C-alpha cells in the first residue's frame, strides 16, 4: 500500500493553529531560522484516518487472536485500563505540578510500589525505569553503587549470566561497565552448578538470572545458587520477565534475590503498543534502598511526596518518576485480581502445561519436565527429516490465523519454538492451536512446499531481510519520487514591528 507521503497533495490541510490575529510573530535570527520546510505529508483528515485505519488492518494484535510469543507474556489487556488511563486527572497532569496538586498520582504510585514489594517479597521499589532492560541496567548500577560504598569497586568486576539469558542481560552488563561471565545449563535445564562454582569468586559482583528461565523451567537449585553468591558477598539480580509464572506462588525475594525488575507490560497487562511503552520497576532489599533512583515516592502520614534527598542515590535513569500512564494501567489490573492474583499465575502455568502435554509427541522437547508459564519445543527433527525449520512452522501458523511463538530463542535450543499462552486464553483457543500445530507437523511430511511458501494470503509474503540490511533504506526516498518533493507552500514569515 501507499506510504503516507504518497497521499500528499500540496496545500491540503488537516490541523490548523492560526496565529492570533492581534499578535505578530517575532523575528528569528536569520542563521537560526528554518530554510527548507520538512517534507511532512499534506493531506486532509479523512485521508489521514483512512491511511492509518488501513495500516491497523495490516497488523495483528492480541485483540486479533492468539499471540503465544514466548517470553513476552502477550495477555489480554482489559479495556477498562484504557478508560482509567484517559481520565483527565491522570492524562492531563503535568509532571511539575506541585505535590499538593498531585496527591492522587503520588498515592497511586505509592500503592503500586507496595503491591510490587509484596508480590516480589522485597523491601523497597522504584518505579522509574522505562522498561525491563532499563531495569536491568539500573539494577547493575545499584550493584556498582553498593560495592563502591563498600570500597569494593575495583574488586567486583564480573557479572555472571546464564547461557539461556535474554540478550538484554549481557548487553546491560557491558553498558554497566562489568565483565560478562557466561554459565552453562545442565541436562535438566537448571544452571550447571559445577560450572557456576568455578566462575564465582570474590571478583564477582553478582548474578543475573531469569527464574523460571527462558526455557520455562524453574531452577531446582535456586537456594544453593543464592548461597553460592551470597557466600562471596555478591548480589543476585532477578530478571522479572517471567514473573507471570509465580505471582503468589514463589517470590524472588524468598528465592534469595536482592534486586528484581518487573515488566509491567508483561505480567501486569500494559498493552505492548507495537513495541512499547513498557515499565520496568525495580524492587530491592533494605540494604540497597539508599541507592535507588531519585525521586523516591514516600508517604508521610496521609500525604505523599517526592524525596530527592537521597545522598547515596545513583541519580536518575529517566525523566520524572517513570511512565505514569503505565502505572495507572498496571495498578488497575492488580486491583482487578487483588488477593486472587495467584490464580492468574496458576492459570498461566496450567495453560502452558496443557499445550505442552498435547504437543510433546509431535515436536521434540529438549527438557522433558513440567513447565511453568511457557515451554520451548524444537523443530530439529522436522528439519532433519523434512527440511522444515522453526521459521516454516511459524509462517505456516499464520495461515491458521495464529501469531507464531518466539523462535530461535533461547539460543541453546536449535530450531526453538518458545510458546507462552498466558492465562487469558480459553481452552477452546488452546485446542484450536494444538490442532494447527499437529496439522503442521503432518504437513511437514506430506506437503512441505505448503510450509516453505507460507504464509499465504497476507499483505506480503516472506520478505528479503538480507536485501533490507544491505540496502539499508530506512527512510522514504523523496528523491526517487520527484513528483512528491515539491516544496510545500509555507506562509511567509511575518516581520516583527520594530519597537512598540
Amino acid at each position: 500500500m501507499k506510504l503516507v507521503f504518497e497521499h500528499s497533495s500540496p496545500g491540503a490541510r488537516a490541523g490548523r493553529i492560526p496565529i492570533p490575529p492581534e499578535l505578530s510573530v517575532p523575528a528569528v535570527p536569520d542563521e537560526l531560522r528554518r530554510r527548507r520546510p520538512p517534507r511532512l505529508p499534506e493531506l486532509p483528515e479523512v485521508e489521514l484516518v483512512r491511511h492509518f485505519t488501513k495500516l491497523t488492518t495490516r497488523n495483528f494484535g492480541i485483540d486479533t487472536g492468539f499471540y503465544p510469543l514466548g517470553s513476552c507474556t502477550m495477555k489480554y489487556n482489559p479495556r477498562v485500563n484504557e478508560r482509567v488511563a484517559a481520565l483527565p486527572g491522570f492524562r492531563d497532569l503535568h509532571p511539575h505540578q506541585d505535590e499538593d496538586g498531585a496527591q492522587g498520582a503520588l498515592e497511586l504510585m505509592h500503592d503500586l510500589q507496595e503491591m510490587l514489594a509484596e508480590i516480589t517479597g522485597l523491601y523497597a521499589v522504584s518505579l522509574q525505569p522505562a522498561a525491563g532492560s532499563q531495569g536491568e541496567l539500573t539494577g547493575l548500577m545499584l550493584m556498582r553503587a553498593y560495592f563502591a560504598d563498600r570500597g569494593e569497586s575495583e574488586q567486583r568486576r564480573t557479572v555472571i549470566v546464564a547461557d539461556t539469558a535474554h540478550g538484554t542481560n549481557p548487553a546491560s552488563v557491558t553498558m554497566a561497565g562489568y565483565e560478562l561471565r557466561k554459565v552453562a545449563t545442565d541436562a535438566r535445564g537448571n544452571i550447571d552448578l559445577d560450572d557456576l562454582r568455578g566462575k564465582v569468586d570474590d571478583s564477582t559482583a553478582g548474578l543475573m538470572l531469569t527464574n523460571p528461565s527462558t526455557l520455562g523451567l524453574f531452577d531446582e537449585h535456586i537456594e544453593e545458587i543464592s548461597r553460592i553468591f551470597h557466600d562471596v558477598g555478591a548480589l543476585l539480580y532477578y530478571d522479572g520477565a517471567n514473573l507471570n509464572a509465580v505471582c503468589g506462588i514463589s517470590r524472588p525475594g524468598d528465592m534469595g534475590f536482592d534486586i528484581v525488575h518487573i515488566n509491567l507490560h508483561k505480567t501486569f497487562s500494559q498493552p505492548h503498543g507495537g513495541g512499547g511503552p513498557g515499565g520496568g520497576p525495580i524492587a530491592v532489599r533494605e540494604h540497597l534502598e539508599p541507592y535507588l533512583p531519585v525521586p523516591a515516592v514516600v508517604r508521610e502520614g496521609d500525604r505523599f511526596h517526592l524525596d530527592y534527598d537521597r545522598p547515596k542515590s545513583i541519580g536518575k535513569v529517566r525523566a520524572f518518576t517513570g511512565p505514569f500512564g503505565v502505572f495507572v494501567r498496571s495498578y488497575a489490573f492488580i486491583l482487578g485480581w487483588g488477593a486472587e492474583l495467584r490464580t492468574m499465575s496458576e492459570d498461566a502455568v496450567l495453560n502452558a502445561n496443557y499445550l505442552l502435554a498435547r504437543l510433546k509427541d509431535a515436536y521434540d522437547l529438549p527438557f522433558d519436565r513440567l513447565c511453568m508459564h511457557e515451554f520451548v519445543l524444537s523443530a530439529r527433527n522436522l528439519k532433519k527429516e523434512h527440511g522444515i525449520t522453526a521459521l516454516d512452522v511459524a509462517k505456516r501458523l499464520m495461515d491458521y490465523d495464529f501469531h507464531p511463538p518466539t523462535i530461535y530463542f533461547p539460543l541453546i535450543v536449535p530450531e526453538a519454538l518458545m510458546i507462552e499462552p498466558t492465562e487469558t486464553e480459553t481452552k477452546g483457543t488452546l485446542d484450536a492451536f494444538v490442532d494447527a500445530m499437529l496439522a503442521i507437523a503432518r504437513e511437514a511430511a506430506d506437503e512441505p512446499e505448503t510450509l516453505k511458501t507460507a504464509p499465504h494470503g497476507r499483505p506480503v509474503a516472506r520478505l528479503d531481510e538480507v536485501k533490507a540490511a544491505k540496502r539499508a533504506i530506512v527512510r522514504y526516498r523523496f528523491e526517487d519520487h520527484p513528483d512528491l518533493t515539491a516544496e510545500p507552500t509555507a506562509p511567509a514569515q511575518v516581520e516583527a514591528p520594530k519597537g512598540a
Partner: protein
Amino acid sequence: MTYATLTDADRSAMLEAIGLSSIDELFRDIPSGVRFDRPLALDDPLTEQEIVGRLEELAARNVHAGEELSFVGAGVYDHYVPAVVDYILQRGEFLTAYTPYQPELSQGVLQAIFEYQTVICELTGMDVSNASGYDGTTVAADACYIAKHATGRSKIVLAETISPQVRQVVRTYAPGFGMEVVDVPHRDGVVDPEEFRAAAEGAACAIFQQPNFFGCLEAAPQLAAAANDAGALSVAHVDPISLGVLEAPGAYGCAIAIGEGQSAGNPLSFGGPHYGFIAAREEYTRRMPGRIVGETTDVHGKRGYVLTLQTREQHIRREKATSNITTNQTLLALGGLIYLCWLGPEGLQEVGETCMALAEHAKERLELPLLFPEQTTFKEFGVRVGRQAQEAIKDARAQGVNPGYPLGRDYPGMDDAILVAVTERRTVDDVELLAEALAE
C-alpha cells in the same frame, strides 16, 4: 477473579489431559523452601465499576491542566493533541501488538515506524532515525554511547543550558560507559561558543539544547561547528514543535539530533510514557541503538518493511550490542507521527509561530524583569518575580493560575525566577490573567 478466563470445568479437564490431579502438582519443581505459603496481602478483587470508582477518586485528587490555567513547561508541554491521534492509537491492532518480529503480520506497525523514521529525519535533517528511545533524557545517554565507540574518547561535554534532568541521566549512565562529564556554564542564558569549543577538545561528544532549557535560542551553528572542529560528535537536543520555525540540526552540521517527543503528539501524563527520538548522519547508522525498520521486497517483488540492521542489537550481538533496549516507545512515537502528519509543514510552522508570538506577548505584558533580556526565546522564558518563586507560584495558584516552573530548583541564584511556558493552548486573554496573578 474478575479476569479469570478458564472455568473450573476447563481446569479439571486440562489437569486430566496433563495427567495431574491438582493445580499444586504443577509447581512440584519449585523447592518447598521457596514456595510462598500464604495469600498475598492485597485487597479483595474489584469489579470493573469498582476499579473505575477507585481510579476516578485518585484522579480527582490531582489538579490537571484543564483545571487551572497553566504555564508550566520545563521539558513537558501542554500542546493540543488532536482526536485522531487518540483514536488510531486505541485501535487494538496497534495497541495490543508487540514488536513486529513477524513482518507478514505486522506491516501496519512496520510501515508506520518507517514513516515515523522518515518524519524524524525530515524534522532534524538527518539520515537515519530509530523507532524511538525511552524519552528525551535516555536518548542523550544513547548519543554518548555512540560517541564513545565512534571516537574512542571518553569525555562528554554538556551545556549547562540543557534540561537538568537530561544532564542528571547522562551523569547516571556515564560511569558504566567509562565516560566522564564536563559542564559548560551558561553566560547570560546561553553557552559561549568559544568556551564550548575549548571544552570539546578531546571530547567524544558535545551536547547542547535548542531552544535551551531557559527557552533561549543558542548560537547552534557555532556550537555544532565548535564540536565538529574538535573532532567531537556534535549533538543537538531539540524540541520537535520548534522545527517548523528553527533550522534543522542536520542543516548546521550536527552529527546527531535527539529530543523529547512529548510536545509532538503525547499527553502530559505526569511525565510519561513519552518518546525520545534519536537521529544521526548516515555514517552512524550501524551504531544506532534500538529498532530500525527498513524497506525491502517480498518473494514476489512487492514492497514491504522489516526490522533491519539487527546485528546491532542485543538479541544478536548480546554483550557487544549498541544498546540493551528492547521494549521501546513505539505507540507514543506513532502518536507523534500521526500528530505531525495532521499538522503538515504549514501547521508545524503555524504552531511554532503561534507559541512564539504568544510568549513574546507575555514577556511584554507581564511587566516583570526578564531573566535573560538579551536573548531571543521560543515558547518559554524566565522572569524574576522579586521574591521567592515558590511563594509567588503558591499565591498565583490560589487564583487558579500556575505561572510556571521555579528555576531555583536547578540553578543557584535563581530563587526568584520562574520559567514561563506559553503554548498554542493559551490565549491572549489567558496572558492577561497570568499578568494579574503575578502582579501583586
